[in-house]
């Protein structure tokens, strides 16, 4: 922006008018108007589809409201009772616990694997384009399709059971077990989203200048030392970005749990996640106010977790 205003002033100079305070101000105002005009489509859509709903949802979280109630304005204010209710609600606590276990399981695993894959496809092996594509394909596959495919793999007469059957193991319905259903969803999420993080790591890796590695190898650093002392530190901003995105994604897990449990978080709430519970509350139990409160609790949790990560990675990354 400032560079633009300079050219404006220069133009005015050429017309013979001096760059007085007045014309400078005028140019600035005009520029501001132009700027707003250009960003108007985005500003309007952001206000209507993002900021507006956000404010409404925030207000709703303090109200007793369902979509069947009609006007939002008439809904009764209930103060913090939706929030208090959430902390007393055993199913919500279970959902929060499940989601946290899920995040702890998924985020580190998927980042480590994604980084390893990125290192592999960044090296000069043959057919790396093929591998890059192959690892990325699950990411662009619909999560629902992936979930259904996993159900076929793990169902009682599915591929896995047929394979285990060769060793005399009895068939088992993996996703119908209260201890295995959630890990199954975790496995699915790791498998299907690794490609995305791999691509971002790959971009980060390619930003590291070759000269660093050359210098290091001249100094006699081993491949491992190069990884620890060059690659990882240079990748810190990328790691931070991936960590944040992956954690937010993990806390918002919904589709896989919905498909695997047929929308009810079963068996015995073992796959109930925060967003699935929020969805159930809002649309099945006509309790949109409570659902909004759950949404904001989730928002606060994600926000705090992101701040903590920034503390650890923040100084050099300047997000």
């Amino acid at each position, binding site marked *: 922006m400032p560079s633009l205003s300079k050219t404006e002033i220069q133009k005015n100079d050429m017309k013979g008018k001096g760059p007085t305070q007045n014309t400078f101000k005028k140019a600035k105002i005009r520029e501001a108007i132009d700027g707003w*005009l250009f960003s*108007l489509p985005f500003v309007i859509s952001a206000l209507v589809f993002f900021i507006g709903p956000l404010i409404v949802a925030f207000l709703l979280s303090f109200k007793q409201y369902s979509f*069947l109630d*009609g006007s939002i304005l008439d809904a009764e204010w209930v103060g913090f009772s939706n929030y208090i209710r959430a902390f007393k609600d055993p199913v919500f606590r279970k959902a929060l616990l499940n989601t946290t276990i899920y995040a702890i399981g998924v985020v580190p695993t998927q980042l480590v694997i994604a980084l390893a894959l990125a290192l592999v496809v960044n090296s000069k092996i043959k057919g790396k384009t093929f591998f890059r594509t192959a690892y990325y394909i699950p990411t662009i596959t619909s999560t629902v399709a992936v979930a259904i495919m996993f159900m076929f793999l793990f*169902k*009682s007469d599915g591929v896995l059971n047929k394979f285990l059957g060769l060793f005399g193991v009895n068939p088992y319905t993996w996703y119908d077990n209260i201890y295995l259903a959630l890990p199954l969803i975790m496995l699915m999420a790791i498998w299907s989203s690794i490609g995305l993080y791999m691509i971002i790591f790959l971009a980060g890796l390619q930003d590291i200048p070759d000269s660093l590695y050359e210098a290091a190898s001249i100094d006699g650093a081993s491949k491992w030392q190069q990884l620890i002392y060059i690659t990882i530190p240079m990748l810190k901003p990328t790691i931070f970005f991936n960590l944040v995105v992956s954690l937010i994604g993990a806390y918002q897990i919904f589709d896989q749990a919905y498909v695997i449990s047929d929308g009810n978080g*079963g068996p015995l709430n073992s796959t109930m996640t925060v967003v699935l519970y929020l969805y159930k509350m809002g649309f099945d139990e*006509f309790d949109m106010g409570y659902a909004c409160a759950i949404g904001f609790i989730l928002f606060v949790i994600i926000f705090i977790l992101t701040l903590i990560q920034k503390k650890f990675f923040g100084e050099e990354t300047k997000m």
Partner: protein
Amino acid sequence: MKKLSLLLVVLLLTTSLLVGCGGGASEDTSSESKEETVTIKLGMWSSSPAETELIDNQIAEFEKTHPNINIEKEVYTDDYMQQLQANIAAKTEPDVYYLDVYQAPAFIEKEVILPLDEYLDQEDVKDFEENLLNGFMKDGKIYGLPKDYNTLALFYNKDMFEEAGVEVPTTWQELEKAAKKLTKDGVKGIVLSNDAARFIPFIYQAGGKVLDKNGNIAFDSEAAAKGLGFYYSLFEKGYADTPQNLGVGWNGDALAQEKAAMCIEGGWMIPFMKQAGPDVNYGIAKLPKGEKHGDLAFTVAYVMSKNTEHKEAAAEVIKFLTGKKAQKMVAESGLAIPSRKSMAKVFTEKYPERKPLVDMVQYSKVYQFGVKSQKIIDELNNAGQRLQKGVENDPLKSLKIAADNLK
């Protein structure tokens, strides 16, 4: 100056766009007069081709006799409740729409649907099955007319029964014996799902209740525990298994793929079996009886939105679609049982083998448990799952946990 005028033009355009959006809707209503044709939007979920054909024929028949009323179908292809609720909040829901009986209490309580009494002939209303109509009533007012219904019955594989030399069971003891005999060669005697909508009939059969007369939780009783206990004892003894463990999608699939000899399902099995198990020779029988008969009925009604601009016309549509002519078409299609008693005969005459489904309606309660239906069903499902997964072995305790969670 040029730029300023440009800005003005842009602003004008955007505001006129916004105004245009709002204005459209109010215009159609103001220009409406009695003689003109009105359009009634009819909201429904997407269904099988056969069912779509039935409703299309009903609509065509209606438009023949009502030249002034035009019916426009609005088919919700996504999650019906989610989309419908969003439309209701925006006041853009259809004038008349499908409503499942188990969501009806919430809709009636929130007054999003209108009572229909003023448009109905009280004599004619008596023709509807009371059990079904009650599901859409509050304080003596009728908020919806059921379009059809289904009950649960016992579907069994005739060939397997013959081979094992088993008679069709009529009591719990006979059911257990039959299931025992039929469990062999990798086939389970009966497929049962972890689903309140399948085990609640057993609670009723044992003399138990889900809710008492005042709508309070009543399933934490000895009788209810007996019903639930019997259902899950079949798993424990090895005569029953879930569709998941049999490697199929749902109960009906287990019968179609001959992985179980019996299942408890409704009339929707008939078109399904034609498609998925055309060679399976199956029969339909009444649900076996415990202390007494008991069953669930599933029904859907046409209801009228409180936001409709054309109440009279909407009422006409509802009355026609649940009227004798349209119900006769339901009966003949065989897809579901017509909700009118006078038409049940047409159905049983055309499809005598399906009579058990009709016979069960007198013992049935509709699948509906007050405003908190969903929560109650979730908790009951969990109570069942605790027994099946061995987390809890005492049915009464499992039901008590469920009841406590609902307090």
